[in-house]
C-alpha cells in the first residue's frame, strides 16, 4: 500500500520507455499524468469539502444539513455544480470585460499551482523543488491580484470595496505567514518541503514552534478569506464583495479556488507543523489526507463559531500583534538554535 502510487509511476515510465520513448519524453508525459491526477484530486476534494462544510455547519447549529439527495446528501454538490454550469453568463455592460473574464481563471490557476510542491506521501510530489516553501508562499500571494482584478473589472462599489479590503488584508497577513514559517526553515535548514517533513522524524514542529503554529493558523485563515476574516465576501455587509457581479460558472470558479486554497494551505500546515506524511501503520498518502482534513475541520469550527472581525481591527491585529509576535518567534528560534549549538546538542 505504501508505495502504491510511486510504483505505479515507475511502472508507467518503464512501460513508456519500452514503447520507444526517450526518458525525457517519458518524464514529461508522467508530469502531465500527475497534473491530471492533481486536478482530479482537487475536484473530488471540493465536492466532498463543500458537502462536508454544509454538514459540519449544520451539526454545529443543531440542524441536519443536506440529507435528501443520495446517502447523507452527498450528491448535493453535484446538483449545485450542474445548475451552476447551466446558468446564464452575465457580463455587466459597464465592466472591464477582459479583466472581468480572466479574473476567475487566474484565481483558479494560481490555486492549482499551489499543489505542485506539496508532498502527498513519501516521494510523491509533482516537482521536488528545493525552494518549495518559497514557491508556495509566492504563489499564494498571487491570488490577491485575481481578487483585485475581479473587484476592479466588475465596476461595482461592493466589488471594489471587497477587492480593496482583500488586497489590504492579504498583503498584511502575507508577512506574518511567511515569518511564522521562517522558524521552521531555520530549524530544518531547508526550503524543500520533503526535507522539512524528514526533519520532523523525531518531533513535530508544532511542539518546537507553538507560537509559529498559532500565528500561521491565524494568518492562514486571513489568507484564505475564511471566517472570521471573510472580508472580501462578507455577505451581510458587502452582499458579495469582490464576487458580487459574477454569475454561474464564473462565480463557481472563485468558489472552487477558495476551497482549493483551503486544501492547499491546510496540507502545507500538516506538512510543515504536523509531521507531513509521517505516521505509523497507515500508508504515507493516507496520513497526509487525515491530517489535512483534521486541519480543515478546525477551520470550519472556527468559521462557524466566530463573528466577523472589523476591517480596521483586522489590520491593526496583523501589524501590531502578529508581525511582532512572529518576529519575536524568529529571534527566539535563533537564540534556541544558538543555545543548542553552544551546548553541543545539535
Amino acid at each position: 500500500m505504501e508505495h502504491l502510487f510511486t510504483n505505479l509511476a515507475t511502472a508507467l515510465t518503464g512501460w513508456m520507455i519500452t514503447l520507444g520513448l526517450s526518458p525525457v519524453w517519458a518524464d514529461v508525459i508522467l508530469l502531465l499524468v500527475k497534473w491530471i491526477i492533481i486536478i482530479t484530486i482537487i475536484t473530488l476534494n471540493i465536492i466532498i469539502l463543500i458537502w462536508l462544510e454544509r454538514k459540519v455547519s449544520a451539526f454545529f447549529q443543531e440542524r441536519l444539513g443536506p440529507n435528501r439527495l443520495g446517502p447523507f446528501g452527498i450528491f448535493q454538490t453535484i446538483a449545485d455544480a450542474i445548475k451552476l454550469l447551466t446558468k446564464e453568463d452575465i457580463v455587466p455592460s459597464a465592466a472591464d470585460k477582459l479583466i472581468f473574464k480572466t479574473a476567475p481563471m487566474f484565481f483558479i490557476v494560481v490555486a492549482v499551482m499551489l499543489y505542485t510542491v506539496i508532498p502527498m506521501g513519501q516521494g510523491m510530489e509533482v516537482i521536488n523543488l528545493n525552494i518549495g516553501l518559497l514557491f508556495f508562499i509566492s504563489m499564494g500571494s498571487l491570488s490577491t491580484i485575481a481578487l483585485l482584478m475581479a473587484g476592479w473589472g466588475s465596476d461595482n462599489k461592493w466589488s471594489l470595496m471587497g477587492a480593496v479590503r482583500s488586497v489590504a488584508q492579504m498583503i498584511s497577513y502575507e508577512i506574518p505567514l511567511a515569518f511564522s514559517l521562517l522558524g521552521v526553515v531555520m530549524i530544518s535548514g531547508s526550503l524543500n518541503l520533503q526535507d522539512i517533513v524528514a526533519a520532523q522524524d523525531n518531533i513535530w514542529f508544532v511542539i518546537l514552534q507553538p507560537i509559529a503554529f498559532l500565528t500561521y493558523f491565524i494568518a492562514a485563515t486571513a489568507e484564505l478569506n475564511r471566517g472570521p476574516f471573510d472580508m472580501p465576501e462578507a455577505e451581510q455587509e458587502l452582499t458579495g464583495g469582490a464576487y458580487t457581479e459574477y454569475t454561474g460558472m464564473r462565480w463557481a470558479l472563485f468558489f472552487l479556488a477558495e476551497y482549493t486554497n483551503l486544501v492547499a494551505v491546510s496540507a502545507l500546515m500538516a506538512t510543515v507543523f504536523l509531521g507531513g506524511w509521517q505516521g505509523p501503520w497507515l500508508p504515507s498518502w493516507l496520513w497526509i489526507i487525515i491530517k489535512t482534513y483534521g486541519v480543515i475541520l478546525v477551520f470550519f469550527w472556527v468559521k462557524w463559531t466566530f463573528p466577523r472581525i472589523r476591517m480596521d481591527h483586522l489590520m491593526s491585529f496583523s501589524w501590531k500583534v502578529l508581525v511582532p509576535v512572529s518576529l519575536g518567534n524568529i529571534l527566539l528560534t535563533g537564540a534556541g538554535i544558538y543555545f543548542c549549538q553552544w551546548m553541543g546538542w545539535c
Partner: protein
Amino acid sequence: MNGQGLIKGLGITLKHFFQKEITEQYPDVMPELATRFRGCLQFEFEKCIACGICVNSCPNNVLSFETEKSENSKKKKLLSYTIDFQYCMFCNLCVEGCPKDCLHFDHDFELSTFSRDDIKRVYLRPAEMDEEKEADAAPVQDEQESKEQKQIDAMLKALQKNPQKILAKMLEQEEDIGILSELMQSNEKTAGKIAELLVKDKEKAAKVAAGFVTKEKKNRLQAEKGGEE
C-alpha cells in the same frame, strides 16, 4: 479576555456538535400541530343560514355569498359561498361570529398553487340539497315522496326530542344508545340520515346506527388520548 471568550465560544459550538439535532423532517414526518392551529378555512354549506355575520365581521372582504329569495317563503336561499383565500388574515373573527358553526379552520397548510385563481374557493349549492328543499317548498310534488318526507321529518323531530325510545329498537346495549342519542341531539346531519333510513329501510338503519356508534366511540377515545398527551 485574552482569548478566553473565543475558547468559551468554541466550547459551546463543540458541545452542540455532538448534541442531537432538533430538526423536524417535514415532508416525511408531518408536524404535530396544536388543536387550535388555523390552516385552511372550510365552509359547510348545509349548515349556513346566510345571515351574513361572517361577511360583516371579516376585516378584509374575504367572504362573500350569493342568495336568492324563494318565492313561497321568506327564507333566503344560499346559492354560492366564496372564500377568497388570498386576502385572508387568519384572524378567526368569522369563525367566532358564525352562529351555526359553518366555518372552521382545518389543519391543512399545504396550500401552494401554480395559479392565483386556484386559491379562491367557491362553494356551489350541492344538488341533493336542492331536491330536498324543493320538496319542502312545493307540496304539489309526487304525493308518495312528500308523504315520505313528512314521515322523515316527524321521525327527525322525535329523534331529537326523545331518541332513547326509538333507538332502543335498533340497538341492544344501553351504553350505545346513550352515545347515539347524544349524537342525534348534537349533530343534525346524522340524525337526518338515520331518520330517513328508519322510514325507508329499518335493517339498514340499524347497521348504519351501529357504524355511527363505533365511529363516535373511536373519536372519543382519540379525544381522550389527545387530552392526556
